[in-house]
């Protein structure tokens, strides 16, 4: 029951994040929306992990470990996106007369 | 004896809940930033402190009282530093 609830929440967050990514013009907000989307996908996967509870564990540890890896990789991608965003902003500024 | 301890522990936790509720209510209703900050720091210091106090008799379930107190002290230190920081920010604008 808990798993289904958070799985559905993850589905909703994915849609909200995708909408923000495509529809918001500000670059930083697009990046934020992309992270919302990532959180939604992780929750969907987390619901699957929770359903696989067994053998004395509260959830299937294999998807849980992969979500953990995913959060760190998503963070690395976000830092790179921020570095790009700031470089574009600083180039825009120095192009101005 | 244990009944007495339980009653005291429930009383402390209830008092902590009141401080949290008051902190939220203050954040929502108080007119200016400084008094809202005042309400917030009360929730931080006393609300969490009273809840930790109420949990101490049962702290063995989670590895001992020092762990609970350590968390509270950490929040106390950071909230004590964040308060003036936010107050300065509120005054500057």
């Amino acid at each position: 029951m808990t798993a289904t609830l958070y799985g559905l929440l993850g589905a909703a967050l994915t849609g909200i994040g995708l909408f923000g990514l495509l529809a918001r013009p500000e670059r930083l907000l697009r990046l934020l929306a992309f992270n919302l989307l990532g959180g939604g996908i992780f929750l969907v996967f987390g619901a699957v992990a929770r359903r696989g509870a067994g053998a004395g564990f509260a959830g299937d540890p294999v998807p849980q470990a992969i979500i953990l890896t995913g959060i760190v990789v998503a963070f690395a991608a976000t830092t790179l996106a921020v570095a790009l965003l700031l470089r574009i902003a600083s180039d825009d500024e120095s192009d101005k007369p | 004896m244990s009944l007495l301890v339980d009653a005291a522990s429930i009383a402390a936790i209830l008092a902590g809940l009141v401080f949290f509720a008051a902190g939220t209510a203050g954040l929502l209703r108080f007119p200016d930033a400084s008094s809202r900050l005042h309400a917030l720091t009360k929730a931080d210091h006393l609300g969490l402190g009273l809840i930790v106090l109420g949990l101490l008799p049962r702290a063995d379930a989670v590895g001992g009282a020092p762990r609970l107190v350590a968390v509270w002290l950490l929040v106390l230190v950071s909230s004590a530093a964040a308060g003036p920081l936010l107050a300065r920010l509120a005054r500057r604008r």
Partner: protein
Amino acid sequence: MIADGLIAAAILVVAMATVAARGAFTAVALFIAYGLLLSFAWVRLGAPDIALTEAAIGAGLSGALLLGAAARAGRAAERPPGRAMTAAIALGCTGVTVALAAAILLLPDPAPSLAPQVAANMATTGLGNPVAAVLMAFRGLDTLLESAVLVLAVIAAWSLAPDEAWGGPSGVAQPMSRDGPLALLARLLPPLGILAAVHILWIGKDAPGGKFQAAAILAAMWMLAWMAGRVAPPQVSARWLRVVVAAGPALFIAIGMLGWLTEGAFLAYPPGLALPIIMVVEVALTASIAVALALLVMGPPGRRA
């Protein structure tokens, strides 16, 4: 169950408010709240390891990173989509949500699970935390590649530095604050944080915790001292910096090769020695990940303002 409904509703509202926010700073503040709430959701989903990671990386480090970005480039924008296009995007996103929701509702019952296999083989690793066993032993290659991703991300971010700034300190210089609340916090919190990080790293073998969470705390404490101006940002040309960032993954690869020589498979641990080897790799990876995370949040060296 009531708690789940409350947390889920709060996450949903905060997510929508983030996407609809008008100012960049407001959006990032809401995003930090989103990260905190998500970590409660992970606790409820029986995944405290992920809850710790989400609180440390999702809310803490990402928050600091994005706040810095909001302060410097909050308003930069592309051309907004037209009205018809926005409607089409909304329709498409609703479709994605409906499809995912249907997939969730139609998941097979009983759910397939690898939990019994993990439980059966965990004894050979000597670890008590199933997630740590998966990360360090059963799917060790994923963790190795992930630590390599962090090194690559540092290289990629540094390559974005303008030519004239190369070799300088990473990020923007912070003003020194000798006294006041920030200086006090920067003096008191890091020692406590380092203790907590060691604790989280050590219990990670048997309970939720481990290198990522510990590394994120260490990175946050370093950055706190940096924000207060108590430590200078590292020069990207410093050799020790590069050695520390690369040491963890390099040691992990060397151990993997050793497994090839002694046991005939990459990343195979000799029986009986699995736990000590895993702990040595964990400690080395913690140092590398902590420095890499801090460098990534500080950003590449920039132009002087």
